């Protein structure tokens, strides 16, 4: 079970969180004309990298904030966690 540092609450066990997928996906702006391909990429297509992955986790049984977690998908090492509005870098 992962040990995730919620930037709001501190270190908590994984079972307090829900996984939210790739955090780098950006929703197309409302009312913007976009191609089928662009939309499909947003809705369906995700990279599944081996190694560093910036992902969303939702602290559902905690502060209910969506947070960003930089995690290694093969070793599960967590390098850093960020608040939703924080710049990653």
């Amino acid at each position, binding site marked *: *079970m*992962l*040990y995730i540092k919620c930037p709001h609450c501190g270190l908590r*066990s994984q079972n307090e969180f*829900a996984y*939210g997928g790739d955090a780098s996906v950006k*929703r*197309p702006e*409302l*009312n913007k004309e*976009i191609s*089928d391909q662009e*939309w499909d990429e*947003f*809705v*369906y297509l995700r990279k599944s990298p081996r190694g560093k992955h910036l992902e*969303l986790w*939702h602290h*559902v049984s905690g502060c*209910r*904030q*969506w947070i960003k977690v930089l995690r290694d998908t093969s*070793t*599960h090492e*967590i390098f850093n966690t960020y608040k*939703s*509005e924080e710049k990653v870098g």
Partner: protein
Amino acid sequence: MRQNYRLDKIGLVNREKKLSFKFNGKKYFGYEGDTLASALIANGVHLVGRSFKYHRPRGFFGAGVDEPYAIVQLYRNGETEPNVRATEQELFEGLEAKSVNCWPSVNFDIGAINNFLNIFLPAGFYYKTFMWPRSFWYRIYEPFIRKAAGFGVASKEHDKERYEHKYEYCDLLIAGSGPSGLASAYAAAKNGARVILAEDKPRFGGSLLTSDVSINNQSGKEWADNIITELKGMTNVTVKNRAQIFGYYDHNMLVMSERVTDHLPKSEQFTPKQRLWYIRAKQVVISSGSIERPIVFGNNDTPGVVLASAAKEYMKVYGVLVGKKPIVFTNNDSAYETAIEFKKNNINPIVLDSRQDSNSEIIKEAKSLGIDIKFSHVVVVAKGYKKVKSCDIAEISEDKQNLNQIKNIECDCICVSGFWTPTIHLASQSGGKTKFKEEIDAFVPDKSKQKEVTLGSANGVFTLEETLKTSFDKGFELSKEITNNNNSQQIPKVSEKKHSKHDKFWCVPLPKGKKYKRFLDFQNDVAVSDIELAIREGYRSIEHVKRYTTLGMATDQGKTSNLNGLQLVSNIENKVVPAVGHTTFRPPYTPISIGAIVGREIGKHSKPTRKSPMHNWHEKNNAVFVDAGVWLRPRYYKRGNEGLFEASKREAENVRKNVGVCDVTTLGKIDVKGPDAAEFLNRVYTNAWLKLPVGKARYGVMLREDGIVMDDGTTTRISENHYHMTTTTAQAANVLSHLEYYLQLVWPELDVNVVSTTEQWAGAAIAGPKSRDLLQKLFPDTDVSNEGLPFMGFVEANLFGVNARIFRISFSGELAYEVNVESDNGNFMWEKIIEIGKDFDLQPYGTEALSTLRIEMGHVAGSELDGRTIPYDTGLDGLVSKKKDFIGKRSLLKKAYNEKDRQRLVGVVPLDKKTSIPEGSHLVKDPKGKLPNPKLGHISASCWSVEHNNPFSLAILKDGKNMIGSKLYAMSPLKNKTIAVEIVSSHYVDPKGERVRS
């Protein structure tokens, strides 16, 4: 009965306390502190079971967790448990155990015929044999294999025992209380670290219990006892025996199984049988020791062949002799301790040493005691069926290829030692790599991946002096990093015998012309010949060889067999062992009972149960409840002899005729507040929300980004910047997460807050033609006329002194209202409605009537919004705005979503107007069509229409729009039904929607 193999004086068992027990129906005695194994051996019982494949007799091989043979069925306190290792089960008064894998008895086992047919049961036998004919699989092969598989039987009774889970945090978790565990625990604890020390066995000390060493002029055991006593007295230390750390998971979480009362005749009240500890440790010390490995020779699975270390442990810990005419067969010095121990107890062992010579301290001691040592000698084959009676021994050539002067000598046990294998399971489970250490012919942990360190013999260090030094140092160093304290301990003085080098010899060659079975894996009956066959057949990867031959796949997970298997594969392939590699170590290290894994989350504790504030009233009024997610809801209120059908029909009819009340507290409720709330709702829902006035409700549909309907419900504008959103019971949590996702991540610029208010409000739906009359009596001060409170209107009102919200919304198609009060007032509201409702023939109705009412009016719910339908499919396309953008809108342009014959919601009526259509039935054109019969749609929900008094169903049907009036068949192979049906409109009641507006 006399314990013929019990020594008089030595051992740690309590001779004051005699315990009686039964094995295979026969009564025996042992002592407190015995294991079932030691007590049986003391009584001269060496036959405990039969092997898995060939049903060969099985005795004892080890004295602990590595035991591959002695698996029994245990009976305790009216319950039975399979797969119990006799070497680990402590004796208690009245213990009963039986042999497994034998019929009719362990002495005469019919399955043993496999032993003589073994030429037909080679590696991969099952894969090769049970392939054809295909039809035989279910009838013959599968039942046969099932019967033959497994050790013992699982109980079919409910397990009455209590199991618990515990979460713990510490600075240092130490797995194993041998010299390295004790030393590192002591050093760390004295330096202020919070320490948990776990020992799998009942006694602490590990190898110190049996080794002939002295530490600070004390015996190993005395030193261990003193350290443990001191540790137990420290508040920053938790010391646990009977506790196996069996899994190393991510981020330094380890799981430990504590056998709390397995060693007692029964568990005391409120004491668990076992406790599972989830431990998050800052640092982990793996001091799990090592396991002696066997040397492979002919019939080396015969009862009486035991590990030399186990023979020593049986003597020194339990005061029990595994035999009185022992052969000690070794390739190293450690087995001489066993020989010397025999000699000290007036038993004369013969030592066969595969090495040509050795003159270390311990061998000198053995010689001086007059022990018969034969160098360059090996055991060729054990003789005897149910117990070793003799063995053939031989002189072995220097290259270990040739056997000379084979002769038979009498013996009753063979104590074998092929050197030591570090127990690296936990280190490997942590994700760390392993490396092969040439000097010890075994793998040891390489670089740690997590915050862990492996010490002592688990790390391939076999001298006590070095073990204690590194362990004291490590314990201090690790604790210093955490506590910043600087209290180091003095490393004790050690005296031990120096060992000479072991011999890299592990398998005795077969004498010319002999085909003795030489076993590697004793539990799964995998012999040298099986591995040879697998490699001849082309299996190369060690993982494939393992699975094909089942080497190391039994319940002992190959603790004594894996390394010899690797040696064999590398020999045949002419590779070095590290090039072959080892199979993956996976948790659990030892079998863990299902009960411990489940813990207390059984029965009604397996999920939370949520009850509405009116629950007690429902209970008192004969409600029959149904699980709705985690909620308990009244399904119907039983009157007299009514069943579900009669009661729900009566309740639904009463709603259509008079008025009914339904507890709708379970609906999800979310408060949406903020200046941008209207804009937010406008983006979340498919329809327009910007112009909804205060005091009005609107029905809304929300989509996922892929265009699939996520949820529906009404949302009411309570005040300028305050909306009250409702969701379905099932989707409440998901919808809240969904809203938070968009507010926090996608549109953080919107000034909106959302919070769940599901539990803050109790709700009652009042539905039926008389509902307004009832409402007026409940709220005499409020204008609830059609003008005062029109359809989709909202008003705050006073219910006999209690604040209430009235929403004029309908789920039943009738004139209806929903009244909400704060949860604490829920029961008050309900009882008032029931009391005043009497004048209007009000009846409460449950979820079954609720479903009936919504189905026959064609209102979609979870069974239609099933995660596969878009708004068009469910007839909700009228609510999709063409003007504004919203979540999921772009997906609705997809070609497949706009096909002319796209599926759509329809009504379905059986032609005979009698036969109910099972939910899930498929709609087909031709009931006798060739399989697979093309499916046109499926029945999503069925009811007995109270309006028309005949069955009615909803269905999602291909080209549903143009299918009204057509005749199809509903087929349910599960219920074995084929029903001729007519497709009708989904609005079976009041298609113009006049009633709700009346």
